[in-house]
């Protein structure tokens, strides 16, 4: 089970190649910087690796031959390469970070740009949380790699190979004997990575369960206390908490085997170098005391990179998986496109639904093959008319509203405005003529002014004032803490539900559409705000064509005509009085509603 999850994070060879290719295409603009950074990194590593060789030279040429000049030369050179390594090192960290961070910025901007071009079907199919994660935590995972891993990974790889080259040059024989220890260390590191990966996946699961218990115990603490279950819940948390502890201890046990083995290998390496080095020295096989000293110093450059690379392997893998998901998003194609020869919508006209059928579905894989949500619906809304859509949840009235603003295109039939099929128009003119006002006033972080101008960023303050006055909301808006400059915070959380609705109505007024599609609010407001919203709506809808998805019968009763939608079909349409008189579906509803409230 854990093993299966473990594989989820891994990419196939093809996927990895794809990720690599796409990454390179993003890096193309920074080609020059990449080359410079690589060169600097190689130079810096060479400087670090020169150190032990210089110590060896100092011992052999200086100390053993009693040559103070050679000793001074070695020390002077060592100081020089140390300083160079410092200067170059700063450049490396800076250059690599700059390239990588810029790459991430480009990726974020591009992924988001692409996201905003995708059709409504995409947003309704995908879970909000997952979409946001793709743009945030998946890219943030890369941020960790970039800030901590990338430089040291490159350096580790270079250090290891550089050290191998250095010791082979110094003494091929002793180098061969020292490198014997590398395969066991590589094997142990691979074992450690595998085992600790497995153990950490388990830890992650246990943390998830424990957090869920914690969260529920806190969110439901009132119920727990009301029913005297404090002790039972504390006990329950104790169990999940201990399970997390046990899972964590397993990782500690694994590490407690690996790290001692690594340290012992280090000591063994020193013993091997000195023992065999001494033997070769006695035999006169070209091994000097300086060589032995240099070998011992190089040992760190051999062993440390193996350990670190094996741990960084995990980071790279999860980063690649993150990139893969982001690229997957970039490769998603969009539904609602503008035709090349698209025309602007006329200023006015009637809204016409002509034999429309519709089914949700995924493009490519059985598009529109899903269950029909709308069957052959036809209706016509005259300019300035007010139509209420009534029907149970899932009957199709909201879907119909979405087709009216072209969040979706119909499977069969057409939606037209002023005789022009919505599919043949520019998206820009469509959004100018037909506006949907969702039921809960949705606000974005920013000021009230920003929120109102969202549909018309170029609108002047005069335009804003006109829109506010047209709805009679001057006092309401001025009454906000800082008027139009009030920061509403995330999702408009600083305003009340009623105030959010009012702002969203001004937003619609500023956009000044010909057709308004309203999704009626269902939340309870305090009576004062409720009245303000109703009055503002009254002003907003004046002289416009209005289609309202109604949840209250009182709203339906006020419309010019009512369309009852059920099971994807238009059941009846007519004025409130006509429908009540006809004694059909609507009349039945109305009667039972009146009965329920007269009791």
């Amino acid at each position, binding site marked *: 089970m854990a093993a299966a999850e473990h594989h989820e994070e891994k990419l196939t060879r093809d996927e990895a190649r794809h990720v690599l290719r796409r990454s390179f295409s993003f890096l193309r603009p920074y080609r020059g910087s990449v080359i410079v950074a690589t060169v600097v990194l190689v130079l810096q590593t060479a400087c*670090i690796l020169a150190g032990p060789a210089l110590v060896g030279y100092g011992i052999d040429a200086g100390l053993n031959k*009693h040559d103070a000049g050679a000793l001074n030369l070695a*020390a002077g050179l*060592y100081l020089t390469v140390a300083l160079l390594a410092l*200067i170059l090192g700063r450049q*490396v960290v*800076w250059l690599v970070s700059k390239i990588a*961070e810029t790459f991430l*910025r480009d990726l974020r901007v591009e992924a*988001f740009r692409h*996201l905003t071009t995708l059709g409504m079907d995409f*947003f309704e199919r995908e879970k909000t949380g997952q*979409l*946001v994660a793709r743009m945030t935590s998946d890219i943030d995972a890369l941020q960790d790699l*970039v800030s901590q891993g990338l430089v040291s990974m490159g350096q580790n790889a270079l250090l290891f190979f550089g050290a191998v080259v250095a010791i082979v040059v110094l003494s091929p024989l002793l180098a061969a004997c020292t490198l014997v220890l590398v395969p066991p260390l590589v094997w142990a590191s691979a074992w450690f990575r595998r085992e600790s990966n497995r153990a950490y996946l388990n830890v992650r699961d246990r943390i998830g369960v424990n957090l869920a218990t914690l*969260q*529920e115990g*806190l*969110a439901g*603490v*009132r*119920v727990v*206390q*009301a029913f*005297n279950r*404090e002790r039972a*819940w504390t006990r329950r948390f104790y169990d999940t908490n201990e399970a997390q502890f046990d899972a964590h*201890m397993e990782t*500690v046990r694994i590490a*407690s085997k690996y*790290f*001692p083995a690594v*340290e*012992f290998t280090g000591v*063994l390496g020193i*013993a091997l170098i*000195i023992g065999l080095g*001494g033997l070769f020295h*006695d035999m006169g096989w070209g091994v000097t*005391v300086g060589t*032995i*000293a240099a070998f*011992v110093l190089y040992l760190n450059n051999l062993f440390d990179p193996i350990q670190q690379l094996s741990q960084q392997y995990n980071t790279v893998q999860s980063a690649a998986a993150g990139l893969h998901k982001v690229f997957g998003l970039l490769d998603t194609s969009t539904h609602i496109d503008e035709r090349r020869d698209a025309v602007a919508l006329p200023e006015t006209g009637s809204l016409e639904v002509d034999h429309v059928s519709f089914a949700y579905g995924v493009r490519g894989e059985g598009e529109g093959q899903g269950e029909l949500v709308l069957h052959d619906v036809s209706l016509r809304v005259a300019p300035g008319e007010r139509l209420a859509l*009534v029907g*149970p949840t899932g*009957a199709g009235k909201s879907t119909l509203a979405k087709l009216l*603003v072209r969040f979706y295109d119909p499977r069969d039939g057409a939606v037209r405005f002023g005789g022009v099929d919505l599919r043949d128009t520019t998206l820009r003119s469509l*959004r100018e003529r037909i*506006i*949907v006002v*969702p039921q809960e006033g949705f606000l974005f972080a920013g000021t009230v002014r920003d929120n109102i101008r969202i*549909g018309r960023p170029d609108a002047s303050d005069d335009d804003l004032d006109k829109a506010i006055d047209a709805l009679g909301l001057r006092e309401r808006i001025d009454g906000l803490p800082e008027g139009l400059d009030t920061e509403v915070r*995330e*999702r408009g959380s600083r305003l009340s539900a009623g105030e959010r609705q009012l702002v969203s109505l001004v937003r619609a007024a500023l956009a000044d559409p010909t057709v308004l599609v309203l999704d009626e609010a269902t939340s309870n407001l305090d009576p004062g705000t409720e009245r303000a919203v109703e009055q503002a709506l009254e002003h907003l809808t004046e002289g416009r064509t209005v289609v309202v998805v109604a*949840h*209250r019968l009182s709203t*339906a009763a006020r419309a010019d005509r009512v369309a009852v939608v059920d099971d994807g079909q238009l059941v009846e349409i007519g004025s409130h009085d006509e429908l009540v008189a006809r004694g059909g*579906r609507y009349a039945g*509803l109305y009667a039972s509603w009146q009965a329920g409230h007269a*009791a």
Partner: protein
Amino acid sequence: MAARVDDERDTTNGDHERAARRAGWRLMYGTVRPQMGWLLGGIGAGIVWAGAKITVPLLAAAAIDQGIKTGDGTTTLIWVLLAVAVGVLQALGTAGRRYCAFRISLRTEADLRHRLFARLQQLHFAFHDRAQTGQLMARAVTDIQQIEPVVILIPLSIASVVQLLAVAAILFYTNWVLAVLALGALPLLNFSAQRFTRRIQPVSLHLQEELADLSGVVEESVAGVRVVKGFGAEATQREKLRHEAESVLDRSLAAARLRAGFLPLVDFLPMLSLVVILWYGGHQVLAGHMQVGQIVAFNFYIIMLIWPMRMFGMLLAQASRASAAAGRIDEILVTEPEIKDRSGARGLPEGPGELRFEGVSFGYGGGRKVLDDLDLVIRGGEAVALVGATGSGKSTIARLVPRFYDVDVGRVVLDGVDVRDVRVRDLRRSVGLVFEDTFLFSDTVRENISFADPDAPMTAVERAADLAGASGFIAALPDGYDTVVGEQGFALSGGQRQRIAIARAVLAEPRVLILDDATSSVDPTKEHEIRAALREVMTGRTTLIIAHRPATVALADRVVLLDAGRVIAEGTHEDLLARSPEYRRVLAHAADTQRDVTGELEVAG
């Protein structure tokens, strides 16, 4: 003037913070103390490790100076074999100290989290009203994570201090001038690690904030996609995101600049020591004051000290964050539950469930009076409906009965006893309450219903579900009573959740049943099924109903109309409807703001 006030506030804040840190250290010490055995074991293993680690270079130096340089192969071999033997000790030591250190820190984490949870479960409602779940989660997760690294480092650093002192002693004994020169650069390592950790923390915090802002833009654009698309605001949002992405880039580069200053320095400072050793030490050898092997040993020791020096720097920087975090946790742990048994609290005597509110005044957190000198008597077995506008105090009355809050003035009396004189467990067992917002746990339907008594037989669970009018839809769930519901389970409608909550309250067979807006989300047409069931539940049981729907209110024997925390009218539903305009107004407003078309059509369709 204003400045002085600020100064004073700063001082009191500073004092408070220092006190919180002290409390934090005490808490950490108190949590580690029971693990003294592991701590001593860890320190012991650490000393063995340090000793072995220090000995290896000495053996290597001896091998070079006495074996290789004199050409004595046997001596070389003996020293080398000794080094391997010491290496075994070193490996065992490192295993022991790591295991102990991590065990202590994980144990500390688990213990603190458990104590925190246990305390939070006991703390009164008023505490939870003030604290948000998210903040409490942060205490239990983020703050405890701040403490962990410091606890890990305690045994590790004690061994490292031993190591550091021993190395310094050996170096000074060998050649004190060289020792001073070689070790001179290392405190800089400690210092710069400390400085780096301190400087990078605010920058990474800032970066985290910018990342949060960025994900805020993504989140709102996805959640509000209907507005974005409906108003053609894609470009506006793209501009916002670009702006945030630039801020993230700026912050990341600020962090990169700090890293670029620090990381290469970590490599450089030890190299500087090695240069000094080679040069000055080399001349000492030429002058005949030192051996070549000792130079090699010096090199070893310097490399050996790099990690402990960096670690001390990080420990110092982390310690202040950890003590502050522990202080915040301690603050919760020392909060005493306000609602608890008085000394001499007794069981609830047998009785019909008669409730009296005598001159009760109450305000949340001692604030504005929600109940103002309220007098109300509910006879045993009587069903009373509480009706009033939002904020009139009807839910508050319900919450005072099971002592979710205690009255400020006056008293609440159940069957002749002040509720504050009854054992809390006994009191709450006798009072069943269905909350306004129903909370179900991520468990099976059966476990949710039998919440008060997990050992209740299945027949009792089924009967409770019947009484709440829930058995019908439960049978239709994928796994019936074994269906997992709640946040992570099967999504129930609001009305279904409420019916399960009613069943949960009914199962405990309470003497007093309180339904706080408990049927507001139930379909109006389904409500009559529950009404019949509720009538049966209410028989012989004192019941308080808070509701708006006329049909539900009509279930009660008597209606009490509340306004501003006082009773302004009482009588039967018909009676009040006939003579109280205020009553008609409250009911009419409630009816007007209810969803109806959708709900009823759901039934019709």
